[in-house]
């Protein structure tokens, strides 16, 4: 075995020899190769991620463990994290996506939390191969999530050319646990305790998944990587989840770590380091489902549905009994030692003898850039996609319909309908809404959940895109009057060895940092996926941000649509100089310029006000939505289409920059419908809080949407509900409602 066969560079190999003080054997080289891979070591991102704010009074567990944990109330805590499964999903979409769901569920379970919700952030190319991948991914997510019984309560799907050969599958899982239970994770193991392997017997599947599949760029030849993709079994996953939670409940579990990327070596060495103990593992005791597996294969296998448990002596027996109730066996494979050494045996023979910290923390890290200041904004204005100033000359209504029916804008129901969004009977608002609302058993409060990460916005200015993703998520939580408790970040980018990719990544993280700081929300964990690059073509840097908020009245969400028409439409915190940068409109015209920088202090101010206004039961706000893709126009269309059939809307805009006003996607803007009788007082309140506001229309009785530009009106169009619905629900390959967008 040579170091480069396991993916190590010459410099890394030299470092390994230094640490060991000798030439490692083949198995040891393999262990280093797996754990020093980009996927496991975060060697290119660790120092950059350190920039993110991670503290707050509500934070119970920050980054570094299986998942972040935040406090919901005195009794209940929320564990949540996003994880990517991009590379496997390209090679084998159904199983790649399914095992992504299974993996993040196990992470949450390992924190002693019961998974209550899933959300997915998916990216595909637009041509037919993208559709094939998408159908497979959706089938895989549904197949696993539906069977294991965790509802998929929301998510997002976007398209772009770079994703054609680098689809993104980021899955967010949320779980609840009681505060009174000791914090569970990998840090509680003590010398003398026994180590158990629980779940599926180990096979030869997924060997090198982390080190080779997820830590390299793709080329056309990589279809032969298919054997490195694992196969998911939601049935065993369900039993494993219940057995692990039941074992934890007995008090007999000292530490838990799920087996994911780099299988047993990763789980066991992580556990040893987090608990600051040594481990002795006996590989001949590992239950295998194939014969004559080598120690190397056992350590590297990524067979799914496995957990590593360390049981204490007081209640360990009860934990084992609880596990057997679920028809699973836990097999003892080793013990915890005080030596600090990580020693593997096969029969009588010692086959590896290292320090676990060499594996987990020894990998040389790439230094982070020192320039911690936001890069200068380079606007290109006016957007080359729209040179005309007036609506009258260059603008036709077909353009607006094209926005409503754009793949990035249209309705997603044909996808979400394939996921069980209602199991566990806590979903008040599911995937039909832009923010999900759940009740939480055992708390008067509930959860607001949102996920967003638009690569198009980060394409030219990754800093702006990172800040915008955080802004949209926190804004969506604020529309529910919810207090943002924490964020999780799924960062996707190309090959980090390329300077331009590394720089874009750093700028994206800086944007996330600045927005999270300004909006006062910690980032409690996440995931980095590099090497989303095939044949040299990389994805747009894509910052997927998930947010968890404390909802104060979850059984009565703040509406995002209307059932009465006596309202005035307000654009709150409107863009000062609306820009089309990064918009759907630009992409449709084949050009992308820099997405505008979110005015973070204005947004923080607006969010604070809105949170109070929306949480108030007697609020004057009848409905509110965040302006994002498709701009104000799409927010209006969606609010209207979701409203009662008797509600019509008349939208009135000034002629100057009307196109930009309507289609700018600058984050931080809100569309709110306020009772017309109370609009004066709302405007006064906004004014006294120094929050900008434009009146952009009125509700009316009737079944149409009317757009008037100019005063007196120079350009007027009206659409019937059925006309607009047809555009917004235009799914390609549609057959009787079963097609997918």
């Amino acid at each position, binding site marked *: 075995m040579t170091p480069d066969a396991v993916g190590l560079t010459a410099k890394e190999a030299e470092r390994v020899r230094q640490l060991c003080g000798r030439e490692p054997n083949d198995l040891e080289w393999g262990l280093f190769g797996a754990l020093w891979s980009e996927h496991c070591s975060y060697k290119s991102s660790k120092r950059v991620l350190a920039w993110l704010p991670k503290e707050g009074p509500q934070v119970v567990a920050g980054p570094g463990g299986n998942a972040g944990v935040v406090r919901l109330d005195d009794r209940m805590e929320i564990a949540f994290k996003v994880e990517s499964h991009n590379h496997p999903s390209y090679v084998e979409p159904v199983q790649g996506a399914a095992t992504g769901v299974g993996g993040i569920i196990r992470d949450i379970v390992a924190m002693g939390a019961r998974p209550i919700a899933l959300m997915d952030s998916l990216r595909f190319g637009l041509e037919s191969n993208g559709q094939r991948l998408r159908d497979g991914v959706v*089938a895989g997510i*549904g*197949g696993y999530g*539906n*069977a*294991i*019984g965790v509802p998929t309560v929301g998510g997002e799907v976007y398209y772009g050319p770079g994703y054609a050969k680098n689809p993104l599958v980021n899955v967010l899982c949320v779980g609840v646990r009681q505060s009174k239970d000791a914090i569970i994770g990998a840090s509680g193991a003590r010398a003398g305790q026994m180590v158990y392997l629980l779940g599926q017997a180990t096979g030869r599947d997924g060997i090198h998944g982390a080190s080779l599949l997820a830590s390299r760029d793709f080329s056309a030849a990589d279809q032969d990587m298919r054997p490195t993709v694992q196969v998911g*079994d*939601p*049935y*065993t996953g*369900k*039993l494993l989840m219940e057995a692990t939670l039941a074992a934890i409940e007995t008090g007999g579990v000292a530490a838990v770590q799920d087996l994911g990327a780099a299988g047993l070596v990763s789980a066991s060495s992580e556990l040893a380091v987090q608990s600051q103990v040594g481990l002795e593992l006996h590989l001949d005791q590992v239950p295998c489902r194939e014969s004559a597996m080598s120690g190397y294969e056992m350590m590297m296998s990524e067979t799914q549905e496995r957990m590593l448990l360390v049981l204490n002596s007081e209640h360990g027996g009860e934990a084992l009994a609880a596990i057997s109730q*679920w*028809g699973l066996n836990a097999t003892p494979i080793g013990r915890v030692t005080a030596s600090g050494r990580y020693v593997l045996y096969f029969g009588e023979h010692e086959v590896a003898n290292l320090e676990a910290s060499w594996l987990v923390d020894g990998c040389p890290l790439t230094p982070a850039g020192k320039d911690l200041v936001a890069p200068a904004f380079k606007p290109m204005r006016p957007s080359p996609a729209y040179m005309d100033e007036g609506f009258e000359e260059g603008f036709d209504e077909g353009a607006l319909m094209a926005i409503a029916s754009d793949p990035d804008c249209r309705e997603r129901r044909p996808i*979400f*309908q*394939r*996921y*069980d*969004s*209602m*199991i*566990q*009977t*806590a*979903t*008040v608002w599911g995937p039909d809404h832009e923010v999900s609302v759940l*009740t939480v058993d055992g708390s008067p409060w509930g959860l607001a959940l949102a996920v967003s990460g638009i690569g198009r916005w980060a394409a030219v200015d990754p800093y702006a895109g990172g800040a915008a993703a955080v802004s949209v998520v926190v804004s969506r939580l604020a529309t529910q009057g919810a207090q943002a408790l924490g964020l999780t970040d799924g960062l996707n980018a190309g090959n980090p060895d390329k300077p331009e990719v590394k720089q874009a990544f750093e700028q994206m993280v800086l944007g996330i940092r600045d927005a999270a700081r300004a909006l006062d929300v910690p980032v409690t964990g996440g995931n980095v996926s590099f090497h989303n690059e095939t044949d040299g073509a990389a994805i747009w840097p894509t910052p997927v941000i998930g947010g968890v908020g404390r909802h104060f009245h*979850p*059984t*009565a969400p703040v509406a995002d649509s209307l059932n009465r028409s006596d309202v005035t439409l307000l654009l709150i915190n409107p863009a000062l100089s609306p820009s089309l940068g990064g918009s759907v409109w630009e992409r449709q015209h084949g050009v992308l310029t820099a997405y505008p920088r979110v005015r973070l202090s204005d947004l923080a101010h607006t969010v604070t006000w809105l949170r109070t206004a929306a949480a108030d039961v007697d609020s004057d706000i009848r409905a509110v939505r965040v302006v994002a893709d498709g701009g104000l126009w799409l927010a209006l269309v969606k609010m209207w289409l979701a409203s009662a059939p008797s509600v019509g809307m008349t939208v009135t805009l000034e002629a100057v920059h009307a196109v930009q006003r309507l289609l700018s996607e600058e984050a931080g803007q809100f569309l709110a419908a306020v009772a017309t009788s109370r609009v004066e007082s709302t405007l006064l309140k906004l004014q006294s809080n120094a929050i900008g506001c434009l009146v952009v229309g009125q509700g009316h009785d009737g079944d149409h949407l009317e757009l008037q530009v100019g005063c007196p009106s120079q350009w007027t169009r009206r659409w019937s509900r059925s006309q607009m619905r047809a555009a917004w629900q235009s799914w390609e390959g549609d057959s009787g409602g*079963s097609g997918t967008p």
Partner: protein
Amino acid sequence: MKPKVAVIRFPGSNCDRDTVQAFQSLGAETKIVAYDREDLEDATHVVLPGGFSYGDYLRAGALAAHAPIMHALVDAVGRGAIEVLGICNGFQILCERGILPGALFANVSGQFRCSWEWVEVLTPPARWPGFRRGMRFRLPIAHADGAYRIGNSDREALWAQGSVFLRYVDPDGPDTGEYNPNGSLEAIAGISDGPVMGLMPHPERAMQPWLGSKDGRLFLSLWLQEVPQ
């Protein structure tokens, strides 16, 4: 006699907790009974909940149909000692075991579907007089295999015996009988036979207005033959 509800948990059941919670919220004494038990103790009402028993491997419900507890169930049904409700996977299990006639095939779309639907009582079951013809319930479905089928020879008997209990209807559209979310024969959503009832929709998920409907409260109360709360 106060009803005593037993919810059977098979390996892979995933609506067991929701179902227990739903019956408890109606004030019924409810407990979970494991699939490998050989008796139903003092249960008066038995529910086979939704989920993916045995991972739906082989065929949905096929393996659970022969779990040890099912012998006790068949026996108790034969003695007229219990009333049985199969929801979703529970309905599939009842059909696989032959306790209810017919079978559940893959949805015609070939896809899992989770959506809110309206169902209407077509034939009130003799055993549960509270369900009246034309009564409508808003309940969610969530399944991949919900297309009810039955052989031609048994089809007439199904109607003649008054077993066609529930069908899907479109509340907005004209009552043409053509609305059909999964391709079920005659849009059948549930059937009954003596003391046994099975349906694909999930009444236990429709217990609160904020979840989308509280029609499940009425439905389950009528099945328990309790005064609805």
